[in-house]
């Protein structure tokens, strides 16, 4: 067939010159309108369903804030901070994770905004940034010198880039200045302290204590039939709490694949969020740390380190400890739904708290808080918490062997963002900025933050959070307030607070937080490779060998000597370990 070019031109010209009748115009407009409506419905439905299924479960700030704020004023021992210093006319722009007035971290700023503005005469401007973009937005602001933000509430992985780039203010002098609100650095857990300091100097004002704990179902563990069946099967009592990951595995195996809650469907042993490009690597580190971090009095070449050899910057991620941790995670993952490999934290929380379909999980402090919401939780009053399990053997690199212990060695952790405030160097209102951060981390505000503001995303760990009876007499908090003000079931609160205290102040060692420049890239590689191992694409050893190779390349590219110096500064190399509050 031959097509004539001229004929084409005629056709096109006919179409272009054709006049549109009113009827056609109306018909076309009608079609467009119908299309727009259908599109809107689809997009709306998508947004709604995505919001309900994919997003983390909503918190219940509204309920609690409305019903208990009045109680707070009566029961919490609040000493209103005296306005020793005022900042009339100043505006403090705070960059934080987007969550709105009821979401994680931003809710804290909205909640205290009016009170702080009244106290200081300054204006607080909350700038919300989606989690995935927070790091890049803050860094870009600093690098380009745009100077939009005075304060940023950041994830600890960002600290290295900010400190070595010279973009954040050292707060040592501010901490000594009596004009500012007081928060006591000795009332913060050691891992949190190490997260916000660099080379012995303070750069962050701590706020959150982002640890991962073990959670399991009280009703299952206290069921005499289940206890008997467990003992018959495994030859030892149902461990309460499970003290090693082997015990966790046995419990998960025992409760997996049968109907233990009488709903007619089989339940699972555990649930977990193991999606790549989300936060799965934290869940892996929670398991692997106890096999890998050898306790010792100081941070040195062989003790209290996990990621790199601090003297050579050789990656340790493919040594026997972390490999055993990954093998354990792979084994554990068999006792949860296969879908976990595609889950971020939201679906996992939903599965454990709202559906009540798993016997145990290990997760952040958000779980017990969500479990108290009667509208979303089926496990209120049925929750037990424990510090993360340990191991009877830890890999000893110095002697190239597994070192045995008489009791399980527990490795405390900060495994998450451990959100804290930093004052950006280019801020024109540094004093006002520091005042805000210090005031938010003062005991009065911090107690409200973890109890009243349910959606705060801030987890307990400071001295003010612990009742003395649950913290060997050290804490200054009050259990009654957790129940009356916070709305917690008393047993749930007791179990949770004791677990937090034991993890932060009674562990044998703790996992150092990787916050050197390039941490995001290093963790991305770990994330990808553990996911490959979990999906069966590689063995644990193969996956971590590849990860180590990536880490070597990243360290080489960034300059090994420089990275070694930063790594040592970031982990407090050579400094003694202090875990107990005494």
């Amino acid at each position, binding site marked *: *067939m*031959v*097509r004539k*070019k001229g*004929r084409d031109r005629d*056709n096109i010209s006919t*179409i272009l010159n054709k006049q549109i009748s009113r009827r056609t115009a109306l018909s076309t407009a009608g*079609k467009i309108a*119908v*299309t*727009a409506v*259908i*599109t809107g419905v*689809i*997009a709306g*439905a*998508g*947004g709604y*369903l*995505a*919001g*309900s*299924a*994919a997003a983390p479960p909503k918190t219940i700030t509204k309920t609690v804030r409305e019903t208990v704020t009045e109680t707070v004023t009566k029961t919490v021992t609040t000493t209103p901070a005296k306005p020793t210093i005022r900042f009339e006319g100043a505006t403090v722009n705070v960059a934080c994770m987007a969550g709105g007035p009821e979401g994680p971290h931003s809710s804290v700023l909205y909640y205290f905004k009016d009170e702080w503005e009244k106290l200081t005469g300054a204006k607080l401007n909350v700038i919300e940034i989606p989690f995935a973009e927070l*790091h*890049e937005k803050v*860094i870009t602001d600093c*690098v380009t010198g745009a100077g939009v933000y005075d304060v940023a509430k950041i994830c600890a992985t960002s600290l290295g*880039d900010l400190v*070595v*780039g010279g973009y954040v203010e050292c707060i040592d002098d501010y901490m000594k200045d009596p004009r500012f609100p007081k928060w006591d650095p000795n009332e913060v857990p050691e891992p949190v302290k190490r997260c916000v300091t660099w080379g012995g100097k303070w750069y962050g004002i701590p706020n959150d204590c982002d640890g991962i704990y073990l959670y399991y179902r009280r009703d299952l563990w206290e069921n005499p039939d289940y206890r008997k069946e467990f003992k018959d099967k495994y030859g030892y009592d149902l461990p309460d709490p499970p003290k090693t990951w082997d015990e966790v595995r046995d419990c998960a195996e025992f409760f997996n694949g049968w109907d233990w809650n009488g709903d007619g469907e089989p339940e699972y042993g555990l649930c977990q969020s193991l*999606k*790549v*490009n*989300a936060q799965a690597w934290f869940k892996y580190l929670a398991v692997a740390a106890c096999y890998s971090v050898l306790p010792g009095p100081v941070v040195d070449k062989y003790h209290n380190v996990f990621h790199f050899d601090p003297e050579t910057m050789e990656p340790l991620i493919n040594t026997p400890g972390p490999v055993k941790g990954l093998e354990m995670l792979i084994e554990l993952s068999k006792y949860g*739904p*296969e*879908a*976990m*490999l*595609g889950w971020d934290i939201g*679906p996992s929380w939903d*599965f454990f708290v709202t559906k009540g379909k798993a016997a145990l999980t290990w997760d952040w402090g958000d779980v017990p808080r969500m479990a108290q919401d009667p509208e979303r939780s089926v496990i209120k009053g049925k929750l037990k918490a424990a510090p993360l399990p340990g191991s009877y053997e830890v890999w000893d690199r110095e002697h190239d062997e597994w070192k045995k212990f008489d009791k399980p060695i527990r490795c405390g952790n900060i495994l998450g963002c451990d959100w804290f405030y930093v004052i950006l160097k280019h801020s024109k209102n540094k004093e006002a900025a520091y005042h805000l951060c210090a005031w938010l981390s003062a005991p009065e505000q911090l107690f409200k933050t973890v109890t009243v503001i349910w959606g705060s995303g801030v987890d307990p760990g400071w001295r003010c959070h612990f009742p003395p009876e649950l913290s060997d007499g050290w804490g200054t908090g009050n259990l009654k307030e957790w129940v009356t003000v916070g709305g917690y079931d008393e047993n749930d609160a007791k179990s949770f607070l004791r677990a937090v205290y034991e993890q932060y102040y009674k562990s044998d060692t703790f996992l150092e937080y990787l916050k050197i*420049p*390039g941490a*995001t*890239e290093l963790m*991305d590689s770990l994330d*990808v*490779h553990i*996911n*490959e191992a*979990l*999906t069966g*694409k590689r063995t644990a050893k193969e996956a971590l060998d590849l990860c180590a190779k990536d880490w070597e390349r990243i360290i080489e*590219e*960034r*300059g090994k000597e420089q990275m070694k110096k930063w790594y040592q500064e970031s982990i407090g190399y050579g400094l003694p370990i202090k875990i107990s509050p005494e």
Partner: protein
Amino acid sequence: MSGEERIKYLFLLPSVIMILSFIIFPLIYSLYLSLTNWQIGRVPSLIGLSNYLKVFTDYRVHNSLTFTLLFTIFTVSIETLFALGVAILSQQKFFGNRFFRVLFTAPFFTCPVALSYLSITIFYEEGGPLNNLLKLLFDIKVPWISDPDYAFLSLCLVDIWQWTPFLYIIFLAGLESLPKEPYEAATIDGASSFQIFRYVTIPLLAPVIITGVLLKIIESLKVFDIIYALTGGGPGVSTESYTMYIYKTGFRFFRLGYAAALSFILLIILMILFTILAFRLREVYYE
């Protein structure tokens, strides 16, 4: 040069400034960046072609390129066949034809991110509507997101659902504009429906098909949003597209020099592809 001629240049000036500012300068600056080792906290220095050479040893580049190519081939092929079929079908006269046409184009106007989040709900493995249906009918549960092969399939299904209407619109417009005479001649000559389709419709529609396919290939090679929202590139890096890797390198790892080099490579690939297809298009058009 007369005053009238000078004024011509004055009117051209805004366009020239805009092109220089928004196209030429960023292009040259990113080319410069691609020759440096710029990272956060480090003074950039020129490192020649190292970033380009590194591409040959970076397994994530190989992985993401392979994924992107497979994704493009798979989705564009299915979409083209499907769109062509539906376009021909909707040319027939049947009740509800116009409504069907409008309905079929709706996914194209949906925001890709919203669509991806909707897909998360549909492909949700524990109690999602698709798995519930499969369980009811065949008693099976498909790991739509947690298995590398099914994750690839899920992404392709979402892309096909959204982008088939795009090709459908183009093909339908092409079909509607075809002349009637060749069909009448072929019918008089006793050609069968298939023969008419094979020897009349396809050759006449070829320029339109190539244009549509070319645009869709370019779009598929740049795929980002549905992957970011639906699988995050996982499991592992099995669904990590090339553009997603560029994004991570530049904006998560802040290795801006390397990210610029990766972007230039994509630009070169697209330009080569465009040139080849444009050349082919010209050939077909003048046949």
